[in-house]
């Protein structure tokens, strides 16, 4: 499945770029997460990691669609 990954904060320093395209055999957030943890082990060492699609946090079971923009959200620290 073709996806665009967008990353912020520390995730941006772990992944190759703020925004990059991937093509992986994944269908859910959960599968994407496992795949990313294999390619970028530093991601798994974070305190937490969340994913957003269309500006909403999504559960692990969320089904991805072709060409989705998936935002990787490392631990937030606003305020």
């Amino acid at each position: 499945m073709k996806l665009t990954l967008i990353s912020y904060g520390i995730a941006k320093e772990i992944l190759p770029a703020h925004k990059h395209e991937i093509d992986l055999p994944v269908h859910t957030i959960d599968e994407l997460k496992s795949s990313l943890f294999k390619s970028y082990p530093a991601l798994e060492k974070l305190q937490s990691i969340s994913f957003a699609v269309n500006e909403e946090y999504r559960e692990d079971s969320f089904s991805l669609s072709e060409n989705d923009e998936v935002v990787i959200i490392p631990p937030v620290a606003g305020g």
Partner: protein
Amino acid sequence: MIDIKILSEPLNVELCTAKVQDDGAGGIVVFVGTVRNHTKGKTVRCLEFEAYESMAVSEMQKIAKTIEEKWNTYHVCMHHRVGSLGIQDIAVIIAVSCAHRKAAFEACQYAIDTLKQTVPIWKKEIFEDGEEWVSAHP
């Protein structure tokens, strides 16, 4: 009225307070978050704030709507700054007005507590000898 903004210019307490004033409001509570000069014993030189802006605004809207329903606030103003901030610079202002002050205190505290948990904004602390994304690691 709900006023939510992500800004790269300095935030203004007077402005945020004025935005929530209302003929019927008896209590306005304002939270002002400023940059501290130390964290876990280390000296902070400055901070970099980064936001996923569209979603940050949408998450702040959710918070504002929740407190509007739960505490019957008149107005809510939430301004968050991004970019490079020095010590004592204001990172966030949350102002809420209610008919009664108890509700205003509770609503404002809920808003900042929730903002820190859910709004996609990140900060990197720059020390004399390095830098660190806040809360990134256990």
